[in-house]
């Protein structure tokens, strides 16, 4: 492949990048600062150079050493500016791309086969470079070329788009309009904590804590169950988005090849509660659709503990008013109002129980008890049901951040989440890029006695906290490839049988 060996600046189509700062300079700078970026197998012979020595040469040693402080800091509150800069520091990121990001399984995951095919080769990658420059329509023939581009361009993050009908780099050479179009992409979902701001009380905006992460857990459970049981999808990868949300990538062939209309209908099937403050009443039909029945079954325990107890969403008078607004019966509302005014310290759990007791005391006029049950169900759904960013799922050509890249704000790696052990996943203990690099050093210090040969056998990611995540991902991808191979073989067999006939 001729373009495979071209220098990064040639790879870049200048028209594609949004250039806010002087880009050429920045590119050159990145290039020069990384003399070994052209070395084709930088990862293949790992850890021969002492990391400390490498960093000794760098001016910004200070920034690096400050990473120790970050490691001890377990909160994900926005970092001070200097540390933030450290996460997008080109040296650190370049190290990360060279040594840690598992390009090979990532490639296999997108390629659905061990040998490169258009699934990967015609797929769009979009790089966010330093200085808010954004480069779209990049594509790569092999995993190694993608890695090389990452090492030399040092994107803050990169996103994955669809496979196009032709190589995205050649899109301007097509003669007929419409012959350059997306043809395949994983079905994706995006859950973001900001959509939960109207109902979470512990944090707001970019911040998260263990309490509100439960909302993401609930969403993952419900969406995962629906995708598996209802739509029959099997290859669903959940990925921590690096700060306060999660992405899902569905790789089943049937899902990948869906057009926008089908994606829209899945999104429509799953989305209920709108994220805005006084969201429209959702008008859920009775009897409940089995999807809601199942979702409620999954969500009910969370509602008691995670919502009523931990979030305590109806604590203040203002919040209480929100609850009262959701109840349709004026008599009931008046009675509850009176009760809660006289006892302002009641918790949300108590207030939730009060609704029933007050109603039973004969304060229900305009609706019957059966309808009250429905209303309470609606409220439960509103406070627990997943809040998806539906637009992300509806379009085949929507770009979504790749797994395993570093979140520029928190430095955390976007690691996959094992849904079988969903409750064990702790977003706040996901390693940051600086921690990981430190862990490599620590490993070398610890295994000083090991022979160079033996050391070479251990890949860099195995020396770090990335290990379980990469292993999970490799297992997941292996499963996907196995399934994919099965389909292919049976197709080939069919073809063979047919060709025999002729």
């Amino acid at each position, binding site marked *: 492949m001729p373009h495979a060996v071209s220098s990064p600046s040639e790879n870049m189509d200048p028209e594609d990048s949004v250039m806010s700062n002087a880009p050429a300079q920045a590119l050159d700078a990145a290039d020069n600062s990384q003399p070994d970026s052209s070395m084709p197998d930088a990862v293949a012979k790992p850890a021969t150079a002492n990391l400390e020595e490498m960093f000794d040469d760098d001016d910004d040693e200070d920034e690096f050493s400050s990473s120790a402080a970050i490691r001890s800091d377990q909160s994900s509150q926005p970092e001070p500016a200097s540390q933030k800069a450290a996460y997008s520091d080109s040296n650190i990121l370049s190290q990360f791309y060279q040594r840690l990001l598992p390009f090979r399984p990532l490639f296999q995951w997108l390629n659905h086969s061990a040998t490169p095919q258009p699934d990967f080769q015609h797929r769009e990658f979009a790089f966010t470079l330093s200085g808010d420059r954004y480069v779209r329509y990049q594509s790569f023939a092999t995993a190694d070329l993608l890695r090389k581009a990452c090492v030399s361009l040092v994107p803050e993050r990169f996103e994955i788009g669809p496979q196009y009908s032709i190589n995205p780099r050649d899109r301007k050479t097509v003669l007929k309009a419409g012959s350059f179009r997306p043809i395949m992409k994983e079905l994706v979902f995006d859950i973001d904590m900001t959509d939960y701001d109207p109902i979470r009380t512990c944090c707001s905006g970019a911040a998260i804590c263990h309490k509100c992460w439960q909302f993401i857990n609930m969403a993952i459970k419900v969406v995962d169950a629906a995708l598996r049981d209802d*739509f029959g999808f099997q290859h669903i990868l959940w990925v921590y988005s690096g700060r306060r949300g999660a992405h899902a990538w569905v790789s089943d062939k049937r899902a990948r090849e869906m057009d926008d209309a089908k994606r*829209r209908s899945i999104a429509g099937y799953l989305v209920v509660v709108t994220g805005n403050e006084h969201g429209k009443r959702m008008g859920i*039909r009775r009897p409940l*659709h089995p999807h809601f029945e199942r979702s409620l079954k999954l969500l009910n325990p969370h509602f008691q503990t995670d919502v009523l107890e931990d979030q305590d969403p109806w604590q203040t008078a203002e919040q209480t008013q929100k609850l009262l607004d959701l109840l349709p019966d004026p008599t009931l509302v008046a009675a509850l109002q009176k009760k809660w005014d006289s006892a302002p310290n009641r918790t949300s759990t108590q207030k939730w129980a009060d609704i029933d007791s007050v109603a039973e005391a004969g304060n229900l006029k305009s609706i019957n008890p059966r309808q009250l049950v429905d209303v309470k169900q609606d409220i439960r759904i509103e406070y627990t049901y997943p809040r998806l960013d539906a637009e992300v799922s509806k379009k085949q050509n929507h770009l979504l951040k790749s797994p395993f890249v570093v979140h520029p704000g928190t430095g955390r790696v976007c690691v996959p989440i094992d849904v079988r052990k969903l409750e064990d996943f702790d977003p706040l203990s996901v390693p940051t890029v600086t921690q990981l690099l430190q862990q490599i050093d620590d490993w070398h210090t610890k295994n000083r006695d090991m022979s160079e040969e033996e050391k070479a056998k251990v890949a860099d990611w195995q020396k770090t906290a990335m290990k379980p995540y990469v292993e999970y991902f490799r297992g997941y991808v292996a499963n996907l490839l196995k399934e994919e191979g099965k389909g292919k073989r049976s197709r080939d067999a069919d073809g063979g049988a047919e060709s025999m006939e002729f």
Partner: protein
Amino acid sequence: MLAASTASRIDPKKRAVLDPRKQQFVKSQWVDQTYPNRMNFYTIPPTEDIALEDFEEWGIARLKVLAELEACQFRNRSPAETEEYMRPVLEKWLRLDSNKSRSPDMHLQRKKDHYSHWTLRLAFASTADLRQRFMRLETQLFKLRLQADSADERRDFIKSLPMSWEMLDADEKATWLSELRAATSVRKDDEENWFKVDWEKVPDLVERRQVLLKKGKAYVHVREQTTMVLNEFTRSLESGLELAARFLPRMDEDNRLAPILHHLSQSFVAPDASYNENNGVSDMTNIHAGSIDGLSSHFPLCMQNLHRELRKNSHLKHQSRLQYTLFLKGIGLNMQECIIFWRKAFKLITDEKFKSEYLYNVRHAYGDVGGDANKRGRGYSPFSCQKLLTEPLPSAGLNHGCPYRTYSPDNLIALLQNVGVGDRELLRAVREDVGRMRYHIACNRVFESTHKNEIKKVKDENLWNASELDTILHPNEYFKRSFLLKNLSLARSGDIGVDGPSQGSN
């Protein structure tokens, strides 16, 4: 590119004359269609020979129906209103009797329906825009008819379709019954039958959570079958049209069918209305040169505009003159009177100049002079809306054509206000129609608004057949209908309805 495509085409005279029947169809290998159902899914193309005239006529009839259907849509008619409106139209142009009727015409009707569909497929396969439109309208027509079908005939028809659905057996039904009921919101007295398909077949039902999903299979209630049949119809038509588009250039047939097909696809802008001589009203009132001013209030905007220009400048340029002369001929002004009309109107011009420069044109338009063909055909036909809407736009300073198309929206509104159309709501709607290039819809809208009292009356009193109030597609039709509506008493006392005896206008 052009050169290449013409070079590859064999000169028609040199082309090897292949009788297709002598080639692959030595004996017919197809089964002649029997049309067991009233409805047709149009999966099998027609195979019998038909007359070229039928090919065109049937196509035009169907086109008429589709155009009316589109007009309903443009005017935001509700489904019920559309059905009401379309019933007489369908009756007239594409009547389909049910099996129960045992009508002797049944086979012919169904054949016509079948062949006309395939004719229009060819005509509208050429561009994506036409394909899209054709697909939308055909689906609507299909839906309309399916709904009108009686329940058991519809069931038979649906059963005959090659669809991949599988009815749920009793076991499965028993296992999932409560979930099925909840998912598809079945009411107490609804039929408890479901079938299962891949969910991808019913994306809209999935989106509205109207189905039960299990491992990628959608369990659909039988009442949704119609929707699915419609979706399948659209899908198969879409792929059929794309296929037709690809094969169209290979048809290599430009003598017999191509002109017809071209004409049909042209007609989709505004269906062609052939001029018929009944459109004159000379049988009800004496039309002479002096009465044109009085009658001009019944003229459509294109002609009123020319009339006003003529009165303002005492002159009209050639194109405008031709358009106007033919229109006047159409309303029943005879040639002598027409010559008098023009002579008087061109009052700044000497007799001599008139004779030498203008008289011949008028006579030519009436077929009084000119070549044999012109005489035999008694001159040109008055221009239809289609003609006015598809001819090249007039250059600056010329006034012919359809003002809805040629005028800028602001000038058009000013013109309408000048001729006394001032209803704000109406003007807003006209502006919208014109913006979407639905010129004849705008014109019809104006007509309906300015004649709304009369239209209401004939509707209420059932004086006119509903198909006599369909979309106007010819300036002379506009005039005639306007005249008749405003002179209802006259039409009745003369006992001449719209379908009255043709007396010609010679």
